[in-house]
């Protein structure tokens, strides 16, 4: 274990209330650089809400979210930043539980749009682009190169000019990950990337995520119900139940934690657990 890896994201006392409903209650954890941190929990536990706080879609009621990007001395306080700035300046990219691609645009366009800010600068806020200056043409070619790299990685090069909405479901999931990666983030947040994938696709996904962690050296935050994914690739697991953290640790530690098993199976307090369940978490159906 590389527990000594420097922290990338530090969440302290995060609380999110919607009126009377406490969706997240005093959550603290650390996601480290070059690690995959999984957030798991039953339906409605507040996992997506954590992502929404992190990426500026919600303003947390209480708490501090500190991002310390590598090779950059400073740090960002995410809870104070506007949504788009978190992606643009802090380098946090995300995918969505219900896929949000630009369905009418082509696959390649989806990946080029993700490089908006770099291209915008290169086109001098459209002036150089309108004049057709070299500087913009070069930047656009680079953008296509990056897109092509990711297309190869997710095996969609042949469908580059298709409308993104016409792709099969599994490909759409992968495209959304590639699109997030095209923003060149330092933290990638994936909300149930394996939902709706068949076992073969899900194995491919594992490989892709491990590659992203290994080759691109970024941190990953992963929400997932599919335990085969979580247990195989995550370095660190945080378990939420009804908005409160109930366990944290390596996949092995967490899967044997009685509190976690209780949360998943709803067993009553003190009830003896059946031995086959106590050995590890079952694979929860994706929702």
């Amino acid at each position, binding site marked *: 274990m590389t527990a000594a890896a420097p922290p990338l994201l530090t969440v302290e006392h995060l609380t999110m209330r919607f009126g009377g409903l406490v969706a997240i209650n005093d959550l603290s954890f650390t996601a480290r650089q070059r690690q995959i941190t999984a957030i798991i929990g039953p339906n409605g536990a507040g996992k997506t809400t954590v992502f929404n706080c992190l990426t500026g879609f919600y303003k947390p009621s209480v708490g501090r979210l500190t991002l310390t990007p590598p090779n950059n001395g400073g740090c960002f306080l995410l809870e104070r930043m506007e949504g*788009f700035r978190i992606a643009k300046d802090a380098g946090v990219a995300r995918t969505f539980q219900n896929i949000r691609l630009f369905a*009418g645009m082509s696959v390649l*366009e989806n990946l080029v749009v993700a490089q908006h800010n770099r291209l915008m600068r290169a086109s001098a806020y459209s002036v150089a682009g309108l004049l057709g200056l070299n500087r913009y043409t070069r930047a656009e070619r680079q953008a296509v190169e990056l897109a092509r790299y990711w297309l190869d990685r997710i095996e969609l090069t042949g469908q580059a000019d298709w*409308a993104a909405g016409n792709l099969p479901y599994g490909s759409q999931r992968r495209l959304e990950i590639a699109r*997030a990666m095209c923003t060149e983030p330092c933290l990638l947040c994936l909300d149930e990337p394996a939902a709706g994938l068949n076992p073969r696709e899900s194995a491919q996904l594992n490989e892709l995520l491990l590659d992203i962690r290994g080759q691109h050296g970024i941190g990953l935050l992963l929400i997932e119900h599919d335990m085969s994914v979580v247990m195989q690739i995550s370095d660190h697991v945080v378990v939420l139940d009804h908005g409160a953290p109930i366990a944290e640790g390596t996949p092995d530690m967490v899967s044997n934690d009685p509190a976690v098993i209780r949360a998943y199976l709803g067993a009553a307090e003190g009830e003896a657990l059946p031995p086959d369940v106590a050995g590890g978490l079952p694979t929860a159906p994706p929702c």
Partner: protein
Amino acid sequence: MLKDALAAAVVAALLALPLLGFRLADSQQGLSLDYRFAWVGYAAAAVFIGRLGMAFAAAAFSRVFQRKRQTLLPLAGRPSRNRKIVGWLLVAAALLLPLAPFADRNLIDKATLLLIYVMLGWGLNIVVGLAGLLDLGYVAFYAVGAYSYALLSQTFGLSFWLCLPFAGALAACFGILLGFPVLRLRGDYLAIVTLGFGEIVRVVLLNWESLTNGPNGISGIQRPSFFGLPFLAAAPGRTTFHEFFGLPFSPGQRIIFLYYVILVLALATNLFTLRIRRLPIGRAWEALREDETACRSLGINPTRTKLSAFALGAMFAGFAGSFFATRQGFISPESFTFIESAIILAIVVLGGMGSQIGIVLAAILLVGLPEWFRDLQQYRMLAFGGAMVLIMLWRPRGLLASREPTIRLAADALEAAPQTAGEAAR
């Protein structure tokens, strides 16, 4: 099917009751109420039969209709040469039109009007077609452009070409001004607020008498000159156009000149849109139309992106407005009513959101044909409405709905062929 037709007939009867059922008759004893319940019956029967016929037709042509009912904007499979060719042919036809033997003054004048609407359609297309912001008050920017030119030229005596950029910039400022309050709104709400904005501008023009001369409008607006040469029979102390070129004077010269001015302005709008569509800002507009949340998660500033769409769309309306003012020589708030916004929006929607050639076709259909078919008299608008309904049944996504991707991997492999040639097409 029967039930559906019956329901439609009942609704028709209910609607017709107050509209057709009663009639005030003028008689010796004063006003009296006539009852015409038979008419209500006819209306209901007509709707019943029509609805039944439509259901049968839909069943018979179900294949035709179903094929069109796609949820996605279809993406053109391969670069469409046809559209480029059609585009260039249209440009050539437009350039040569004044030379054609059948081109009389009337025709050129109508074509000029048509081109104004084409230009407005192309301008609004930036806002509605690309950025997906439903704007029902577009005519406000047209009005701002027209009044800016009229007032600038009357107060400071500036020429048309000097005023044009001012008018465009002023309209763009109004675009941003409108953009700010509506940033958070979408769809129907946005449409309502923009509609209100359009009306506000018109009402201000109507009531700010000291500046705009209120409902009487501004007359005697300076006509454009050909690089300083006026189109007049004689101008004391100045050389006129016909004297300079040694031509006989003819009022048609100015008409043709105006036609070419608006052609150039419209083509410039088109070229600008085609280019900016391939730039990051253009792609961001389309992405914003598809999914604003995803845009934000990719670090695209939605505020700035929306405002730029509003501003640029408004700018072209401002240009078109100045041209309108110089062509008419007279403007009043009458020219900038809601119906204008509605027509421009109809052109964009009917053309197939985002398609440049589609907008030209739609403008010909919506503005050109009613002008030329004035002989139909009171049935003109009926035919117009009927045509709209038919087109929307036949092509619910507009005339040319398939969208050309702004960038292709396949073409890119051939070392990014220069795109300037043929860019005016599509």
